[in-house]
């Protein structure tokens, strides 16, 4: 599934759900050693209740990237930044461990961000990056990456396009703990998603 954001028309994000991942340790090692074939954002799917929650974290990343002039990124890549923005916590290592690939996570959400450009180039890019050629090119790249994901991740890979896919995968107890929900915890997924979106948007302000 390709996610698009009308505010940033040149940006496209590939979103994939990998279930029953078998080579989680290999992936973790490869990500840490910055292997090019593993240049994706790997998210522990147990922490996620809805596609909205994922998109909200990406939206926050993009907003910071383009408009926060002082500090567009707190980590060294947009992918790590998205994981950090999925966490209510400002501690980078801790957030990556909890919300990225963590021990015993059998299901991953894999994202890749395309068409970012530099923070200050947004205006020009709107006009230059979008012509059909570039768009076709991008389609090819995305297809290649999708294939690559299927190659490097030993799992059942499906495009993530609705919340139903996450039922049974998200771990509500873990969410309650990681987001420190306490009394606020609700089991209704729609309400929970709304709650998490607000928590994410307001963290570290």
């Amino acid at each position: 599934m390709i996610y698009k954001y009308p505010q940033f028309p040149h940006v496209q994000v590939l979103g994939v759900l990998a279930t029953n991942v078998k080579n989680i340790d290999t992936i973790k090692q490869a990500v840490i050693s910055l292997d090019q074939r593993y240049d994706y954002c790997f998210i522990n799917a147990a922490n996620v209740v809805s596609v909205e929650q994922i998109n909200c974290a990406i939206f926050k990343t993009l907003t910071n990237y383009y408009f926060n002039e002082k500090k567009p990124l707190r980590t060294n890549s947009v992918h790590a930044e998205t994981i950090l923005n999925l966490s209510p916590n400002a501690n980078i290592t801790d957030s990556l461990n909890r919300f990225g690939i963590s021990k015993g996570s059998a299901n991953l959400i894999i994202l890749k961000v395309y068409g970012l450009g530099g923070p200050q180039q947004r205006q020009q890019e709107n006009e230059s990056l979008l012509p059909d050629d570039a768009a076709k090119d991008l389609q090819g790249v995305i297809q290649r990456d999708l294939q690559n994901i299927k190659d490097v991740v030993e799992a059942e890979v499906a495009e993530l396009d609705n919340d139903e896919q996450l039922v049974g995968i998200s771990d509500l107890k873990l969410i309650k703990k990681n987001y420190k929900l306490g009394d606020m915890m609700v089991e209704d997924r729609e309400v929970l998603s709304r709650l998490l979106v607000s928590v994410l948007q307001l963290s570290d302000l």
Partner: protein
Amino acid sequence: MSVANIEKAESLLGDIKLKKISQGAEAIIFLANEHPYSNERNCPTIVKYRPRKLYRYPVLDLQIVKQRTASESRIIFKLFQSSVIEFNKLEKKKNSEKIDRSLVNYVINNGGVNCPKLIGLDVYNGFIFMDYINDTLVNGESSSLKNHLWLLEKTFADSLSEKLTVHNCQSIVASREIEREVVALNSKIKDLLVLTGIQLGNMHMFDVIHGDLTSSNIILKKYDSENNNDELQPLYIPYLIDFGLSSQSSLTEDKAVDLYVLEKALESTHPLFSKDYSKWVLEGYELAYEMKGKRENAAKPYRVKHREIYKRLEAVRLRGRKRSMIG
């Protein structure tokens, strides 16, 4: 100035198309045709934009915009969060018996507050994205409480004047009396205002002060219930909006002033019936405290709290909004 700001907002929002709905001193409200990040297309969203003020020193200006945008969003979140917590308490008490979680019940049964959903935040440019909770009234106006009441008042006045010409009634005083009687009977208005009052009570119990309560800052949303099939008189549920001047405070004074501001606003927008309207809102307000007391099995402390605020409100009525004469 205003045109430049709108253009600026449009350029910052890329492909999102904006339609200006209203403008205040500090912010412009737009209706956007797209949700900023949802997969669903064509999902209208409210965008509140605080433009930069050119007369302020830029660094300070950035800080002010950031801080105000953040604080408004925090209030919206706090109301939602507190509502959820209240609801959880209730559910626990009922021994995990599942209760209908529809938003209406958040208000009526459990002491919550209806407010817009916070979708996104861009503190660097001063954008808040919220969900669009508007409906249109029968006459095509947007469904704020003000428009709704005006419509009902007008319909009522029209039918009354029709009757008066028929009956050739001469006494103006008598007609005023009739007018008042009939409106008082109009339970639709009463229910709505009591429901608003309940929400205000709940909001104050969360220690949130709205700061700018007027009938146009209360939006009505149609509630589709199975029992209500009356197309012309749909059931409306009030939502509180515009937390730009809101703050968090537990002081009796602030709460009383909040209610006083609403009273004054009702007086100037609905001069004929403001007394009844205020009375109903305060009825709901009291009910909120009563229900909270019942839920917590501590009727007395909440009754005392309510009485304190009510007494203070009477004092505020005599002296006006400002306690100190400075500033």
